[in-house]
């Protein structure tokens, strides 16, 4: 918490930084000297928006702020706000020399992130080889052998690094590739529509081609003309696209939770890339119509005869391709949807609903947590309360334990859930063996443990209750397992269920109280909780969160992915249907006479509809042959991200195929029906 007089806020984005931070990163300092700003203890550098929050329009330089009601810091520099797309962002930096924990010089602890600027032409791999020797001096050879430091290029971290405790939540390059591929496919679908409709409509332009040829136009000139038309169309579309980007960007940012902007004038690669793409799209779309049209023989062309059936087989292939892409996307969307539903329906081993989490920010609150719990339970709408240091979905303490049955000197890696005796009850967990921790047993405070089934399994314990455990890192020398908790998902279902140990620690470890509420008036309830909080410590602003929302945050990437994929799929379906609509309209138009004749011969409406639709329906069916293997490959790659996942059955594929078929049939048959019910006499009038 940062405060200046009565202005106080919780700031999540403050960091310690070396005085050399400005040599490495290119932050723009508006006021102050980058060389000296962070050299002295209790100095801090702040960003513009942070400064405005505390000082308004005053000059922040030389002003002081209090952090956590303890230390005062003097502002020695003002930075421009850190751009959203930086490797990491912050609102203030505190000089490293202010750190009193002594950890900043401790090479055995990994509290800090280290950035190196290597000299030009230096090879990172060579630099890597120097680390062990340095570490050996700092932490001793034995300890150094267990650590393997390596360099990562800064620009690679956001998209490609998946290490534990990254500086910020990273993105995944695989998702970017997937989205880019889908976007490319969608452009291709639209190009195909242009090609198909242009060649189809070309038969209507044959007379024009004939006249031009008779007038002396060469094949080249004609091809260029049609190519030019396609390019012109492409550039006009670019104009429309830029307007659409402006309109839809806020909505897109809303879905993705990103803060993207399409600034075409900032000299980035975006404008040239768009222009190149526009030209490529124009050439792809225009080349085939240009070839077909310019190839027509002048005599046949002037008689209005088209180039023959040659073009239509390519058109069929292209429509098949379009539907293959669409069906693939449909399958992918369905699988992502089912996997998400599977995740949310999957039994987590605890009940995440109706839990309000309120942080215990001050020592005053921590030491009074028992009294706070009693106060809370007076409210009839609150059924259970538990204080804990961490909780499922959050961080834990990565220290190993010593347990019965392990070879001497060996330890066991396990996740720690540190909580009071009410946690099991509050989170609706189940004890499968032994008993839960209880205030009835004074020993439980220091010497009793719960483990989950997985821990028992991995330790090879058939009878876990009564086994002894110690945690040397936390100076818990001897203790006994008193119960076994049914397995629960401490982490997301991306990873398999891991061993967990649960125990009580002194109140200064506690960070939050979880409150199980009955359904009711939540705002009223929150107000009463706030009242209790402020009675115990009026200096702390009251904040809270809903546990299920926090826990579901583990699946944000999948949630956004599903939404984006859903939109992409809708667009693909729309484009493919549009193309099909155009083609069948055209087919019906060119076959008006044939339809008239067939009707005169006694053809029924349904036989005409199936005549016109059948061909396209066949294409959609063939498209499944290509879509299914492609979708199978893609979804299995994606599902590999989850330790617990659905097995997509044939049903999903069949359903997607049927849905595509239904869309195609509806699209095609509306036009086919129109043609089939038209008065045959119209078609049979003499030319």
């Amino acid at each position: 918490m940062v405060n200046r007089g009565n202005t106080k806020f919780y700031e999540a984005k403050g960091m310690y930084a070396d005085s050399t931070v400005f040599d490495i990163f290119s932050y723009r300092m508006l006021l102050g000297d980058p060389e000296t700003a962070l050299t002295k203890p209790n100095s801090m550098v702040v960003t513009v928006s942070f400064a405005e929050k505390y000082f308004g329009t005053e000059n922040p330089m030389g002003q002081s702020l209090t952090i956590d009601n303890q230390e005062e810091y003097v502002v020695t520099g003002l930075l421009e706000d850190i751009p959203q797309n930086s490797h990491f962002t912050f609102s203030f930096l505190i000089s490293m020399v202010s750190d009193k924990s002594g950890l900043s010089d401790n090479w055995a602890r990994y509290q800090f992130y280290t950035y190196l600027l290597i000299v030009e032409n230096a090879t990172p791999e060579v630099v890597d080889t120097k680390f062990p020797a340095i570490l050996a001096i700092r932490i001793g050879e034995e300890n150094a052998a267990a650590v393997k430091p390596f360099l990562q290029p800064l620009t690679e971290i956001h998209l490609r690094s998946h290490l534990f405790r990254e500086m910020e939540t990273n993105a995944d390059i695989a998702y970017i590739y997937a989205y880019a591929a889908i976007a490319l496919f969608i452009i291709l679908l639209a190009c195909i529509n242009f090609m198909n409709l242009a060649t189809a409509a070309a038969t209507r332009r044959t007379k024009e081609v004939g006249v031009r040829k008779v007038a002396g136009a060469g094949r080249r000139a004609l091809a260029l003309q049609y190519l030019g038309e396609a390019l012109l169309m492409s550039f006009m579309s670019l104009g429309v696209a830029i307007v659409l980007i402006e309109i839809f960007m806020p909505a897109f940012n809303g879905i993705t939770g990103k803060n993207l902007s399409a600034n075409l004038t900032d000299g980035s690669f975006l404008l040239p890339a768009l222009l190149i793409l526009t030209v490529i799209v124009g050439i792809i779309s225009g080349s085939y119509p240009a070839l077909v049209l310019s190839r027509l023989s002048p005599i046949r062309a002037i008689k209005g005869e088209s180039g023959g059936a040659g073009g239509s087989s390519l058109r069929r292939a292209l429509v098949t391709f379009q539907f293959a892409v669409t069906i693939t996307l449909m399958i992918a969307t369905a699988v992502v949807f089912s996997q998400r539903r599977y995740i949310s329906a999957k039994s987590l081993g605890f009940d995440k609903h109706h839990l309000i989490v309120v942080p215990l920010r001050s020592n005053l609150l921590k030491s009074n947590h028992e009294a706070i719990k009693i106060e809370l339970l007076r409210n009839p709408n609150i059924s259970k309360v538990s204080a804990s240091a961490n909780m499922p979905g959050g961080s834990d303490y990565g220290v190993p334990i010593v347990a019965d049955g392990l070879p001497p000197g060996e330890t066991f890696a396990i996740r720690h859930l540190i909580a009071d005796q009410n946690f099991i009850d509050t989170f609706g967990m189940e004890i499968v063996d032994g008993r839960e921790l209880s205030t009835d047993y004074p020993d439980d405070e220091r010497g009793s443990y719960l483990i989950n089934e997985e821990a028992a399994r991995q330790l090879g314990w058939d009878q876990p209750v009564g086994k002894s455990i110690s945690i040397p890192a936390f100076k818990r020398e001897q203790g006994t397992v008193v119960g076994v908790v049914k397995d629960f998902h401490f982490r997301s279902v991306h990873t398999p269920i891991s061993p967990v140990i649960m125990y009580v620690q002194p109140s200064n470890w506690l960070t939050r109280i979880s409150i199980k509420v009955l359904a009711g008036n939540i705002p009223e309830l929150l107000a009463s909780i706030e009242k209790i909080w402020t009675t115990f410590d009026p200096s702390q602003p009251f904040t809270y969160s809903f546990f299920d929302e926090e826990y579901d945050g583990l699946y944000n990437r999948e949630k956004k992915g599903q939404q984006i994929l859903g939109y992409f799929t809708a667009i693909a379906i729309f484009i493919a249907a549009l193309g099909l609509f155009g083609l069948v309209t055209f087919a019906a138009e060119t076959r008006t006479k044939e339809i008239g004749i067939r009707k005169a011969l006694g053809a029924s409406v349904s036989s005409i509809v199936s005549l016109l639709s059948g061909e396209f329906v066949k294409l959609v069916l063939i498209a499944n042959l290509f879509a299914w293997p492609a979708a199978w490959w893609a979804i299995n790659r994606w599902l590999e991200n989850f330790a617990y996942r659905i097995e997509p059955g044939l049903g999903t594929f069949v359903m997607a195929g049927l849905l595509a078929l239904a869309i195609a049939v509806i699209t095609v048959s509306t036009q086919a029906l129109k043609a089939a019910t038209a008065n045959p006499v119209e078609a049979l009038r003499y030319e």
Partner: protein
Amino acid sequence: MLIQLIDIEKYYQTGAGKTFVLRNINLEIDQGEFVSIMGPSGAGKSTLLHILGVLDDPSGGSYLLDGHEVSSLSDKHRGELRREMIGFIFQAYHLIDELTVYENIETPLLYRKVKSAERRGMVSDILDRFQIVGKKDLFPAQLSGGQQQVVGVARALISSPRLLLADEPTGNLSSKEGETIMGLFKELHEAGTTIVQATHSEANAAWADRVINLQDGWIT
């Protein structure tokens, strides 16, 4: 009686009012009759044939075909009538360009759901009868006008219709080709088929038992 037209009218609504194509047509045609409808272009011959062939509806009046009021029939029943009872021959032949001679002739049988083996026999018979076996795999574009019309006639006759409607069947043919077609009609007539043909030509009209003159939509 096969055909009975009572006060048949056909008009199009235009900006200025109604433009009449057919007025007050009263006509009866017996089973087995061969009738020619004569008249200049625009007299309404084609429209009359289209109405007779259940391809178009009259704007007013009543049309009884084989005793059934046609205007009360659903689309499905009209299709059935055309399939089962009527053969149509057009001046512009109206063969389907994408189908071979064989397939063109076979088409009406497909709509009558005739079995494949039976179809093959029927088409072979008629190819034989019209001496076009050698042309069965050709496309319409590869035939002369006369040959195309022979195919058109073969197609109209394949399902042995009781009523054969021919709209200027010889209009695009040489006089020799025309005579061949008329000879065919004569034979069919003698075999009992009811034939109604529209024509410009006095000579062709004379092949029929009865000639009806149409002028500006009126029977004169």
